[in-house]
């Protein structure tokens, strides 16, 4: 027998009544995140900062980090970070950007390769990003994020009323700010993959929000005489099972990725896990309560909108049933 049969048919949580608490908590978290980013800063990876990263597997079963460090120091390449990475014989070297442009970086890579060659069984990864490229990648990343947010808000505006677009966009910004705060606090590396993760979080979060907004609109049209808090509660409660089940399956998949997916995409995966959790919370506790704050009422959605039935017929390309 399906477990879903045992789920409460009609949960009656008073989400709307608690909206001051959830909105307050969200605001405080956002402020704390901004402070965290300002004070602690993001641990920018080589993608954005420029510099050299190498991952080597040593011939020795346990890498002699001390010896590698002293050999690297002999090269006089400035600030070098050396740490074990996953396996005991895998070491990750991070070298600051060298003075003297792209040529100097290339020379540094070659010198490191020569100096460590005797120890290394396998050069697992060598990455170098020039300063100009790093700056461009940073700008492209910010541009992509900004455009994505704008495009999604426009789509919601096109399908709903402006209040929904504004609330949806606010929820998105909320999720992204909190994710940035998460990276500032954990000091996980912030790289190109993280930007992809951030945009995916935006996509997931807006998906979640749109599902609930859709129901809000439907319920607002159906019960024109009820009070707003009651209608919001009805919308959130009737979609609650779906909200939890979908984030449940997504998180299950993501935890599999975090546990078995290897070290390369670990920070990417943790960003997604955090983002999915925050995105789920924000559509219930932040985006939807904001609709009330923006003055949405039943009359907002009743102006000559197509009915669900018509919309369904249009989308599926066939009439009714």
């Amino acid at each position: 027998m399906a477990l879903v049969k045992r789920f409460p048919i009609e949960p009656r949580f008073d989400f709307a009544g608690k909206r001051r608490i959830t909105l307050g908590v969200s605001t405080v978290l956002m402020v704390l995140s901004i402070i965290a980013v300002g004070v602690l800063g993001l641990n920018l990876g080589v993608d954005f900062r420029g510099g050299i990263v190498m991952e080597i597997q040593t011939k020795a079963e346990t890498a002699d980090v001390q010896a590698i460090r002293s050999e690297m120091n002999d090269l006089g390449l400035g600030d070098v970070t050396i740490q074990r990475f996953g396996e005991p014989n895998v070491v990750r070297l991070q070298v600051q950007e060298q003075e003297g442009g792209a040529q100097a970086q290339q020379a540094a890579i070659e010198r490191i390769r020569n100096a460590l060659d005797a120890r290394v069984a396998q050069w697992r990864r060598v990455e170098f990003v020039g300063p100009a490229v790093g700056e461009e990648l940073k700008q492209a990343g910010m541009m992509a994020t900004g455009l994505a947010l704008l495009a999604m808000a426009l789509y919601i505006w096109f399908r709903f009323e402006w209040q929904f677009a504004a609330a949806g966009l606010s929820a998105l910004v909320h999720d992204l700010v909190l994710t940035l705060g998460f990276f500032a606090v954990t000091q996980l590396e912030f790289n190109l993959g993280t930007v992809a993760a951030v945009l995916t979080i935006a996509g997931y979060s807006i998906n979640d929000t749109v599902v609930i907004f859709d129901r809000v609109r439907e319920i607002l049209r159906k019960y024109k005489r009820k009070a707003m808090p009651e209608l919001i509660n009805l919308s959130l409660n009737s979609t609650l099972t779906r909200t939890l089940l979908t984030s449940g399956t997504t998180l299950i998949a993501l935890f599999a990725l975090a546990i078995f997916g290897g070290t390369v995409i670990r920070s990417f995966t943790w960003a997604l896990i955090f983002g999915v959790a925050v995105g789920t919370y924000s559509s219930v506790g932040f985006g939807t309560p904001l609709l009330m704050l923006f003055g949405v009422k039943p009359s907002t959605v009743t102006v000559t909108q197509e009915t669900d039935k018509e919309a369904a017929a249009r989308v599926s390309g066939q009439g009714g049933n």
Partner: protein
Amino acid sequence: MLQIPIWQRVLIFVVLLAGLAFAAPNLLSEQRARSLPDWLPNQQINLGLDLQGGSYLLLEVQTDAVIQDQLNNLVETLRENLRSERIGYRNLGISDGEAVTFTLTNPQASREQVESIVQELGQDVTVEFGDGGQVTVDYTEAATSERVRNAVTQSIEIVRRRINETGVREPTIQRQGDHRIVVQLPGINNPERMKDILGRTARLTFRMVEQGTNPANPPPGTEVLPDDDTGPNGQPVRRYVVEKRIMVSGENLTDAQPTFQQGQPVVSFSFDTVGAKRFAEATQENVGRPFAIVLDGKVISAPVIREPILGGQGVISGDFTVQQANDLALLLRAGALPAPLTIVEERTVGPGLGADSIRAGAMASVFALIAVIAFMAVIYGLFGVLANVALLGNLILIVGALSGLQATLTLPGIAGIVLTLGMAVDANVLVFERIREEERNFKGMIAAVDAGYRRALVTIFDANITTLIAALILYYFGSGPIKGFAVTLAIGLVTSMFTAIMVTRLMVATWLRSRRPQTLPI
């Protein structure tokens, strides 16, 4: 919604079969898949460099050098013309690296002459007269950008030739933006030699050496060039005073091959007819004098001409190792770059890390799939099982689409697939929850299922299109692995909508019709 017209049933089967057909070659070994006839789908998923191992290099054409070259030539042309027209001038040179300037000694008298000189240089050159006889000559912006564009196009061609000469398998060489070139070299895990080959301009010239002059004070028309060999202190072992006039240049070479002469690695070359003629004339006139073989501003060797070289063939020797001789011959065959290239980004992944990533990605996918399938079956019972069948169909469609479109699968791409596995069931969850609700509203079972599908459809579209927007923007702005992620995410969204709405609905409708159940299992 439960009356599924015949064309939709046909469409569902055609799409699933096509997905299966395009996904199937991935189960075969590479050779077997390649040997399939062309009318069958025979392409396997294209693995990104982060999975198969290899080197990604981003090269930047030094366009400043192209512009500088252009201005240097302009200076020389003007100098010649001003001299032959006997126009008095001083301070001829490039100012601020942007334009050629000089000052006329007699501004009134010479102005028209200068104008006619510039006019003869063509429409691309403009001239401006300032106070006190100041003249500024410059190329138009259009001419300069045309020149830069050509230099980049030519550079790509030279890079392609050089890489092909090294015999790397399936390289990718593409222009990126205005003046960058992306080079992807699968299977190359130590790109130092490739970087060396691509980083050299390889401009070869043969010029006469001026004898008996002091390098500290070279006569006009000559320049001082260092020897290619460096001593123990890193300084060149000697310097040569070399004529600026070029006898023959690398453009006149038709072939260059590494070979041995008296046990030493050398490079033998042959000139085309023009080159052979010029070389013959120059060597006839200068028997007994040394000439310099200059590569990228360094003298490789400076042999003395013992007899005229008339055959248009010769040998470059210069203390090469075998590798150096091979590389030099390769560079001479491929030709010189119009401007230096610098490497501004490099990402090299060794085969070990690539294999680890594939293993980790596969393991994560399998565990995610099992976990999601178990979760859905436990929560939704029979309907969960139907959703799971659709999920497997979805996975096959994703693999089929990736193979058919020849999109590149990267590690973040695998993460995209795993994420889609989790999100793909969302459409089904939406429908199932809606059915549960509709049934609660005392509708009949059939009506509840029907309404559930109809009502959930709009939501599914709205929700997925917003995510699709994020994926498309990610594809447009992302690079390399990130693009791979955007591709799998977008494909996954589309296929998951298809499988959830079409495939599961067909299964649910068929089940309702054949079993005629009294109650819904959810």
